């Protein structure tokens, strides 16, 4: 103790100690976060003309792909049955920005090829000369930070897309479903049996052999086996015909039955339900990436968390939790060879820090708040928007449970709160007409690609899948039914018996897809007050809303949504009383969804969905706001163009197709 006191009282010793500590820190920092070997230090691969490069052996029946310059191989050719996708503007050729007050025409081809597309010619492998060493992408804190593909929800796929590939991909320019690890497919007339022909000579990374039909069966089994927690797990169980409580052996047995292996390169997937739109689930929009069975057999469930192993054009190098994920780009790949040596996702929670990282060239793409867009542009950066307005923003009028519900014991009860003004159509319409969407979008989403009108659950993309899905009258009558008109809104409130307005809760919560949603809610509150309504702003977390809506206990409240799901899934989940959200229930909707689940013909299904759409349009089931295209700031000194569809959850897909500026 005497020694300790002596130390405390001896400033010279303390100063020395501080110096030693500092030196130790310097040494520790030097070794704490070793930088992976920069590709720049490696000798550059000799540049070869694309035509001379060795393509992966193509199936004998496929014609050799014509040699193309690397820059032209942005995306695989669209299926032969589809019209050619329109060329998309490059990063620096953004369309005029601002609010579009009329429905924007997206001239995209039908995304679902029916019948099956022709066999795809193999794309010649390319190597890229003058590729930049590293491409950095700064995103907010990742909602999932794991190497498992089957234990995270779809928003956790941002860092898995570079490595993992799917049976069915998505064209980055048109949004169409295109062959990826499957070269072609067809669905039987029963809407349940899907035949996929698989691409040959695709090798797994890390030496796990060739991709075969066994891997398809294994990948589907992974999603429903006991340790899995994917998005849409209930849908996956329905598709596979299993229950949550099923034992492992039962699930394995069902997977064998569900995925019939014809030969190494052909499978027939027998769905447990009629699902003519199954490509939504089986393709890149959802969470069925191909995983190697050989790897699972070698490392098991625990080992699958160590790294990501796939067949994609990038291979996993390391993940430092809370910091970054790093990938190496392949020198050769059948689909595309990235124009950079490494890809790095950096998790930077604070928006200002992401901006600083972009400006200091720590990263070359960064998700930046729209409010600082002007400043970002002034500093020489530019924004790239998704091809589609993949953030469909609307508000839900809670309490419209117009269908009796049953409790766990089977006793029926009515969840309606008779005092809820939002049960009246006039009130919902008044609220819809009170909101000045254009002004809000112009003020809070400056420069963003915004589309007004939008129709909840009926998107442009879905219109391409089911032509005729959207009734043209919705657009022509939009102003009459939903358009901003405060005077008409006041009259509607009068007619509904609320000349003095009423109190209601306007629930605010942050939203990763649309960070401005809190400001939007506050702006809407001002519009509501202008017609005499009395909104009470309340911070209510999404999980609390989920609890309440599941129990149908939330009334006289509006809350925001921002998603871009596909129509069938959305209608059933959100509006059917058999769903889990209970956003607007009605016996008519239930009846139509019941019919939909027993209808295979595409035209009939389209008609049924449109009937629900007509009903919701007239009933003002929701308060539609606008669709917004996701965007990302890029440094044009490094990024020449980045084209991404913008409607896949997580948004920033197709990074392997980025065109870079040679340094």
């Amino acid at each position, binding site marked *: *103790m005497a020694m300790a006191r002596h130390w405390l009282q001896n*400033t010279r010793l303390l100063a020395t100690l501080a110096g030693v500590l500092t030196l130790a820190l310097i040494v520790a920092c030097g070794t704490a976060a070793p930088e992976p070997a920069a590709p720049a230090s490696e000798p550059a691969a000799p540049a070869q003309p694309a035509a001379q490069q060795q393509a992966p052996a193509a199936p004998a029946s496929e014609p050799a792909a014509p040699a193309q310059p690397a820059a032209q191989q942005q995306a695989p050719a669209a299926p032969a049955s589809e019209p050619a996708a329109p060329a998309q503007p490059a990063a620096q050729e953004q369309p005029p920005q601002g609010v579009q007050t009329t429905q924007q025409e997206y001239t995209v081809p039908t995304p679902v090829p029916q019948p099956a597309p022709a066999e795809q010619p193999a794309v010649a492998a390319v190597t890229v000369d003058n590729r930049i060493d590293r491409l950095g992408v700064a995103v907010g804190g990742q909602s999932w930070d794991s190497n498992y593909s089957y234990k995270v929800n779809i928003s956790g796929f941002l860092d898995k897309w570079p490595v993992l590939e799917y049976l069915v991909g998505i064209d980055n320019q048109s949004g169409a479903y295109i062959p990826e690890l499957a070269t072609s497919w067809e669905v039987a007339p029963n809407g349940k049996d899907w035949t996929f022909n698989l691409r040959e000579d695709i090798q797994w990374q890390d030496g796990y052999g060739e991709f075969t039909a066994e891997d398809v069966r294994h990948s589907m089994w992974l999603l429903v086996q006991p340790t899995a927690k994917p998005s849409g797990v209930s849908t996956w169980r329905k598709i596979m015909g299993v*229950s949550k409580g099923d034992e492992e052996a039962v699930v394995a047995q069902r997977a064998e039955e569900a995925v019939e292996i014809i030969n190494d390169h052909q499978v027939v997937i027998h769905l447990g339900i009629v699902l003519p739109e199954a490509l939504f689930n089986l393709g890149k929009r959802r969470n069925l990436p191909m995983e190697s069975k050989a790897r699972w057999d070698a490392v098991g469930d625990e080992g699958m968390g160590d790294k990501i192993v796939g067949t994609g054009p990038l291979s996993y190098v390391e993940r430092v939790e809370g910091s970054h994920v790093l990938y190496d780009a392949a020198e050769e790949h059948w689909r595309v060879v990235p124009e950079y040596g490494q890809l790095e996702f950096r998790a930077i929670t604070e928006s200002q820090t992401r901006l600083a990282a972009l400006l200091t060239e720590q990263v070359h793409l960064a998700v930046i708040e729209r409010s600082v867009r002007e400043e970002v542009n002034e500093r020489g950066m530019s924004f790239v928007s998704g091809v589609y307005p993949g953030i469909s923003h609307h508000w839900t009028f809670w309490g419209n449970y117009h269908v009796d519900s049953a409790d766990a014991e089977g006793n029926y009860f009515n969840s309606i709160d008779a005092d809820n003004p939002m049960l009246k159509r006039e009130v919902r319409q008044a609220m819809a007409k009170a909101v000045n969407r254009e002004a809000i979008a112009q003020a809070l989403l400056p420069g963003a690609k915004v589309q007004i009108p939008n129709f909840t659950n009926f998107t442009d993309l879905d219109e391409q899948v089911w032509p005729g899905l959207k009734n043209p009258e919705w657009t022509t009558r939009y102003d009459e039914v939903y358009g901003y008109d405060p005077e008409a809104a006041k009259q509607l409130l009068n007619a509904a018996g609320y000349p003095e307005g009423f109190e209601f809760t306007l629930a605010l919560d942050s939203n990763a897809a649309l960070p401005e949603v809190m400001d939007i809610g506050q702006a809407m509150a001002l519009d509501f007050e202008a017609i005499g309504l009395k909104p009470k702003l309340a911070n209510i977390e999404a999980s609390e809303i989920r609890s309440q809506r599941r129990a149908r206990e939330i009334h006289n409240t509006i809350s925001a949504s921002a998603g871009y799901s596909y129509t069938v899934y959305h209608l059933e989940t959100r509006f059917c009383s058999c769903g889990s959200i209970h956003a607007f229930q009605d016996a008519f909707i239930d009846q139509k969804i019941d019919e939909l689940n027993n209808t295979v013909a595409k035209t009939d299904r389209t008609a049924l969905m449109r009937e629900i759409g007509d009903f919701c349009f007239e009933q003002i089931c929701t308060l539609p706001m606008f669709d917004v295209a996701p965007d990302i700031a890029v440094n044009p000194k490094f990024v020449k163009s980045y084209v991404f569809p913008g409607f896949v959850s997580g948004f920033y897909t197709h990074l392997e197709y980025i065109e870079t500026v040679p340094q």
Partner: protein
Amino acid sequence: MQRYIVVRLFHALLALFAMSIIVFSLARVSGNPMDVLLPEDATEQDFIQTAELWGLDRPLHVQYLVYLGNVLRGDFGVSIKWPGRSTRDLIFARLPATLQLSALSLVVAALLALPLGVLVAVKKDTGIDYAGKVVALLGQAAPSFWVGIVLIWIFAVTLNWLPASGRDGFASLILPAFALGWFQVAAVMRLTRSSMLEVLDSEYVKLARIKGIPNWKVIWKHCLRNAAIAPLTYFGFILGGFLTGSVVIETVFAWPGVGLLAIDALRARDFQVVQSVVLFFGVVYIASNLLVDILYAYLDPRIRYNS
């Protein structure tokens, strides 16, 4: 002395117990964890089975007792956001980064605050003293996230001297360490100043000066040695403060430590990790306070005798 330590230990354990109840309750009050655990389209069957799996179908007090029992056995639960990872592993994996940041912040605070405190005490009521007061005011008034962002914009964006974020070697440690240490510079400087003023006015210092000992030697050897006791024991407090204060700074600088883990877990509503991190911070804070109490008692016998 032993009795004093036993009493303080008992108090610390009591505080930890109370904190575990608060942490557990807050994690549950903020919403049903199953609404985070399960996807949007989960069925009632999913909810029932998940509740059974996580023990969420039991009464709250039973859940707490199970949690407490697990904690005492060193089992802090499994993360939701990081599948397959125990929360203890997650904390220990991030701890080196936080310790590294805290240690350098401590050095920054000591190297800046002690000399500055001495200087303003010696130059009492001069321009330097007033400037020191301004520095102290700024240090304690400016929020650390604001200081962090300002530092990034000056030294990373404008001057391009240091990296803006991440943990890529020593250069990336400087800005977050300075931002974290800056707040404490003001406090330690003021403490040093007042201690120095007290010592400078003492008889033995006057005697030393009369004896003709050089002024620098009087100040830095005789005065500081005695005046440094209070600020040095205060460092015990601020070490705990650095660990907990790292939540903001680690978020601003994307520094992958325990503080950022807490924020990431909060965003993902991973209640298992949140309650473990908060408990960990609480243990660190209570332990550092306990150590300081013991140190005080050792250095000043009046405390242990009075207690």
